[in-house]
């Protein structure tokens, strides 16, 4: 009497197609700004990874006879810095660190923050209080000050930079995810899903998470550019990578003393930071739009 009447099922007249993923990629590809940004980031990323093959000089090869060589000099396409090191090599090798520090902590922190925020926002009650109060402690410190404190407690280096930036970003992502989760949890379709007998885990993963995902991914891409700068700040304070290793931020910092004499030493890494940050932002917008099914044309 209570068994679901499935015997009425008739064979399907036409085959089911499952074009969802395809449409999403197509929606992304229509957004030329985002595609350009993605392509640019890919080029920068690949160039950094394959830096040894792309530059004639090593990043630490100082040539004291050709210091402050301007852009376009033979042998030094983008000139040299105050120690006569090739700017191309410095930028490519620096990009390895800058991109790593910009991307990895942000992604790690967004994943952890998303999980914590979902849990806190969806379960509410005790779990919410415990998670959010703990994060409030982290939140109470200014972002960079805390990063300095964490990095200062460890050995200077890239790992330290990555860990400290990850830790300071987690509360930001958790707060965003929690607020978004609470907004979504109040939507009638969540009540409808519960009325249909969905389990809490099911509702969280299939209904809440996809809706919370977009603001988090957009926020993450926004922060990637900023974290390149924060990572440089840590290096500048002696807590991140140490000279002669340099990321873009450190190059800007080093070059600023000779800004009048050789502006390219500062300007080139500056332009790269700006361009990469912008590209991350455009990429984030593109991903958000592509994730929104309303962008799918039929």
């Amino acid at each position, binding site marked *: *009497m*209570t068994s*679901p*009447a*499935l015997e*009425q*099922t*008739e064979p*399907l*007249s*036409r085959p*089911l*197609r*499952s*074009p*969802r993923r395809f449409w999403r990629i197509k929606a992304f590809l229509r957004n030329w700004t985002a595609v350009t940004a993605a392509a640019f980031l890919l080029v920068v990323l690949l160039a950094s990874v394959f830096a040894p093959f792309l530059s004639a000089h090593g990043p630490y090869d100082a040539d004291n006879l050709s210091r402050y060589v301007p852009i376009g000099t033979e042998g030094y396409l983008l000139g040299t810095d105050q120690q006569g090191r090739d700017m191309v090599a410095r930028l490519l090798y620096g990009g390895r660190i800058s991109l790593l520090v910009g991307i990895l902590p942000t992604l790690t922190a967004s994943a952890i923050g998303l999980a914590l925020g979902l849990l806190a926002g969806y379960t509410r009650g005790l779990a919410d209080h415990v998670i959010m109060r703990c994060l409030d402690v982290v939140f109470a410190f200014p972002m960079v000050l805390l990063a300095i404190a964490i990095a200062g407690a460890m050995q200077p280096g890239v790992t330290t930079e990555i860990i400290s930036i990850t830790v300071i970003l987690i509360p930001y992502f958790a707060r965003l995810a929690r607020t978004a989760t609470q907004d979504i949890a109040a*939507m*009638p*379709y969540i*009540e*409808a*899903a*519960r*009325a*249909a*007998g*969905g*389990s809490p885990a*099911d509702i969280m993963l*299939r*209904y809440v998470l*996809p*809706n919370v995902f977009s603001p988090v991914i957009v926020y993450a891409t926004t922060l990637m550019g900023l974290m390149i700068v924060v990572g440089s700040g840590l290096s500048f304070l002696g807590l991140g990578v140490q000279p002669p290793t340099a990321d873009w931020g450190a190059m800007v910092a080093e070059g600023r003393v000779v800004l009048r004499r050789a502006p390219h030493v500062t300007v080139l890494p500056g332009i790269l930071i700006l361009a990469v940050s912008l590209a991350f932002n455009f990429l984030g917008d593109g991903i958000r739009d592509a*994730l*929104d*099914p*309303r962008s*799918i044309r*039929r």
Partner: protein
Amino acid sequence: MTDGSDITLEVKNLTTRFGSAKTGVTVVDGVSFSLKRGRTTALVGESGCGKSATALSVMQLLEPPGEVIAGEVRLGGVDLMRLGDAEMAEVRGRRIGMVFQDPMTSLNPLLPIGDQIAETLTAHTDLSRHEAKQRAVDLLTRVGVADAGRRVHDYPHHFSGGMRQRVLIAAAISCSPEIIIADEPTTALDVTVQAKILRLLYDLQQAMHASLLLITHDLGVVAAMADEVIVMYAGRIVERADVDTLFHRPRHPYTKALLACVEGISDRAAALEPIQGMAPDLKDPPPGCRFAPRCPSVRDVCRRQDPRLAPYSARHDVACLLVGEEAANG
């Protein structure tokens, strides 16, 4: 009152409160009713009278601070109030399907509608995801969505309000529940669409031989759909009767007043009779009859004595102190 075997859902003395015993508001106060197989029961009343809270209490979907503090909800011999969360999740969607008021926000915007219908099926049956999606196509066809094989992949924003309500109905009936609860299913829709959706609900309920609990404030809908009508006021049932009796021989002054509000339509606005005053604040309900402050035929006794829902005639219960008196006077 009726043959017990026909009863699908029996609600006894359901009491729901928002907040604590001291400061809380009792929004559903000792409500008892039963639903019968293949019949439609309409739950009517003004906004805030506890109609929706009753439905959510039955489904145990109340959000804190809302809480059912007393009563039984018996479904096939089992008191749902005694079930654990997981057992109750088995009941929801499978044995009781629910259709909500606002089709525009009751579907997940990021999930194709076919997946949302399949979600209910995979939660309650051992169908695979693919089989569930196939079944979703059948269900969509059944609720009147044209070209369902293609549209099953579409997202909610591709559908109009009426079509979305059809999708939600398809999800609600996907496991052939014994009971369908429809909470103001047409309130958010255009008048022209309303009739179609009601027709669909009626046809499905007849075909499935299910009980339909139709929550509405629209007496026109009640007249068209219901077999039995329950009138609620301020968290309590004030009158209960079959639809003909209720419309032609209402006994409770509140029911009479509700009907007078509607009859005005044919006689132009001059004849409209709004009910005077406001529904009482449930934080501090008036002593005696809760309708007394607005009742045109109020007596002194009404302000002191709280009327109980009592049989007036066979299948007609009224909660009014004046009813006996009226009967005695002829």
